């Protein structure tokens, strides 16, 4: 009986909790980028998915370069070493885009609707760039040790029927995401620049009156967005694989996470990311195995006990989004309302 319970718990951890935590961390980083754009730059950036794809692409190219030179990170993926290159290139791209495109509309005080349309144009260009440089195919770029804990070792250690496997990429995702989030909150709450950013987000005119340089705040926001997008994209690519179209499709869960948490609220973005990922994994997981351990022999389900096919995982983000819009339109953590 106790053994069944333990087996069920291990199966649950292995198939639901571990993957959902890693995926949630990736979504949270993506949603943080979106929410920062909404809070400081005041528009919904449709190009965010393609920004992630661009950053990841540069990281992949740098990884290949390092591998060609014979430099690897040992047991860790080489992509971690290449990450700064990706962040720098993406920051450069976003700053150039801002200078060439967005700044004009900011000076015109254009509405958020106009900026959203402008970001559609930016999305086309970035999407074209990524496809032009790396193509549309799947790219795998993880190297180093594949597993932190392998299913076989775990079985031998615990003597249970169920194995627990934790991929290196999953461990790195959670660790990196935690470090990035702590650093971001420290930056926003403790440093002078971070405070000026928050002041600018709260009340632009008042911030200008108190002598905050708006162009500097905007530039720093873009750099933060670039870093968050590149890190989120690279972690997702390490965990799964890199394909430009998949990154475009990540837009929906990321937006859903940002809205569920409350647009403009960083804490909300993180909470939203995990809510979306856990619902997605839990609803599309076939519960047959776990239920088989928990329920008495006769009651075990015949089918897969899967609530929703994996091909409908987008539907989960959407349903949660609709529920939140119906019940609490400002999100769980109160976001901005305009």
């Amino acid at each position, binding site marked *: 009986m106790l053994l069944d319970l333990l087996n069920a718990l291990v199966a649950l951890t292995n198939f639901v909790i571990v993957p959902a935590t890693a995926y949630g961390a990736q979504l949270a980083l993506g949603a943080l980028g979106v929410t920062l754009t909404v809070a400081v730059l005041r528009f919904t950036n449709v190009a965010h998915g393609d920004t992630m794809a661009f950053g990841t692409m540069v990281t992949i190219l740098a990884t290949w370069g390092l591998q060609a030179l014979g430099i690897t990170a040992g047991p860790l993926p080489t992509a971690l070493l290449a990450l700064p290159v990706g962040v720098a290139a993406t920051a450069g791209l976003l700053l150039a885009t801002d200078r060439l495109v967005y700044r004009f509309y900011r000076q015109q005080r254009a509405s958020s609707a106009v900026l959203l349309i402008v970001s559609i144009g930016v999305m086309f*260009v970035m999407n074209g760039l990524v496809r032009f440089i790396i193509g549309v195919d799947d790219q795998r770029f993880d190297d180093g040790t594949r597993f932190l804990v392998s299913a076989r070792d775990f079985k031998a250690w615990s003597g249970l029927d169920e194995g627990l496997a934790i991929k290196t990429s999953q461990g790195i995702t959670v660790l990196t995401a935690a470090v990035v989030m702590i650093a971001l909150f420290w930056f926003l709450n403790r440093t002078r620049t971070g405070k000026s950013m928050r002041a600018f987000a709260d009340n632009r005119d008042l911030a200008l009156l108190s002598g905050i340089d708006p162009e500097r705040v905007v530039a720093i926001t873009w750099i933060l967005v670039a870093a968050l997008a590149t890190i989120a994209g690279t972690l997702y690519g390490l965990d799964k694989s890199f394909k430009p179209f998949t990154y*475009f499709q990540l*837009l929906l869960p990321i*937006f859903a996470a940002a809205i569920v948490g409350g647009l403009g609220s960083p804490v909300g973005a993180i909470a939203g990311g995990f809510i979306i990922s856990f619902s997605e994994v839990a609803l599309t997981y076939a519960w047959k195995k776990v239920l088989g351990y928990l329920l008495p022999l006769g009651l075990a389900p015949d089918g897969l006990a899967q609530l929703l096919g994996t091909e409908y995982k987008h539907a989960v983000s959407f349903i949660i989004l609709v529920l939140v819009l119906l019940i609490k339109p400002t999100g769980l953590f109160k976001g901005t309302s305009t």
Partner: protein
Amino acid sequence: MTLRTVALFLLVAVLILLTGLLQSWNTALYILNMGLVSAVMALGLNAQWGFAGLFNVGVMGFVALGGLATVLVSEPPVHEAWAAGGPRLIVALLLGAGTITLVVAVRNRMTKGWLRSATTIILAIGGFALYRALFDPARDAVEAVNPASTGFLGGLGLPVLLAWPAGGLLAAGAAWLIGKTALGLRSDYLAVATLGISEIIVSILKNEDWLSRGVKNVVGIPRPVPYEIDLQQDPGFVARAGDLGIDPITASTLYVKLLYTGLFATVLVVLIVLTQLALNAPWGRMMRAIRDNETAAAAMGKDVTRRHLQVFILGSAVCGIAGAMMTTLDSQLTPGTYQPLRFTFLIWVMVIVGGSGNTLGGVLGGFLIFFLWVEVEPLGQMLLNAVTMPLPDGAVKTHLLESAAHMRLLTMGVVLLVVLRFSPRGLLPER
């Protein structure tokens, strides 16, 4: 009709004629026909964004629903599949819909509290379990019937032209559901909600084999026009083609395409006239008043959310009609080809470049951008051939040449950004 309008439409005509002279008349007519379809899509989106300021980033979903309507209306019914599990499947779907209605009704009637929450949860879980218990075996039975050629329920076997209004109705229904939840909130919530529903609609088309055969595609959908092969065997047609000095095979393909042009042009003209009438009526003035100042319009007693819902449904229905027209033209439904960049964001480029808020502007954008979409690829190929000429043969050259196909996305983005910057109201601005 200003001189500018006439000149720009003449430009489109010249571009299409040049394609015919320099490339082939089949390509020219393809651009013309798809331009007409694109113009109808742009008309739908223009009603939503240009006349009411609503963000619909889910055009793809409504277009795909139009495509589905074509299958459901015109394909002959598969009798064995219906016998195997059709009625059970319908009952299961009705049961699912009934559960949702019941839950909504319960939530509206009962007072807030733990009793309501508990009833909601029990009803929802019970209804879902019952639905799956009934639906799963019925679906498997239907999909098991001759999966290589059918494996779906088929349609009603009606004339395919009826699918066009049906596509509009289907899209309108989906739009009503979305509009009910997302309108009246932050404007970009509607954007994300429509983005979501369009992805879901396409996943349904890709995965529900009993409905649309999924990625196995439905091919050979009945056509409203004669088949080329019949024309080629018709001595009268061959003789007339000979009089014009065209070989019968080319003549038959051109003739069929021209018939489609006639059908599509009729739909487009009717829709343009209706739009113009509506815009010049008090209704149109009210819509513009709401778009320009919602608060003032609301203060004048206009029900802003209701009007938004109305125009959102109408615009989506037009997109649905265009989707049905496109699937009819292709005579096949291929769910795998619905890409948001092509069917949502490209339509946005059409409306913005053409002129949002101007009926003819959207139409112009439809033609012009679709022309670019088709022609950028060969032009890009030529450009890259010229650029890579001095390069030695090798990986870089091959990669560059193979990448020509992606030039079109880049071009569309640049065109959109340039127009937004230097002519933000589009080529034909709203008066």
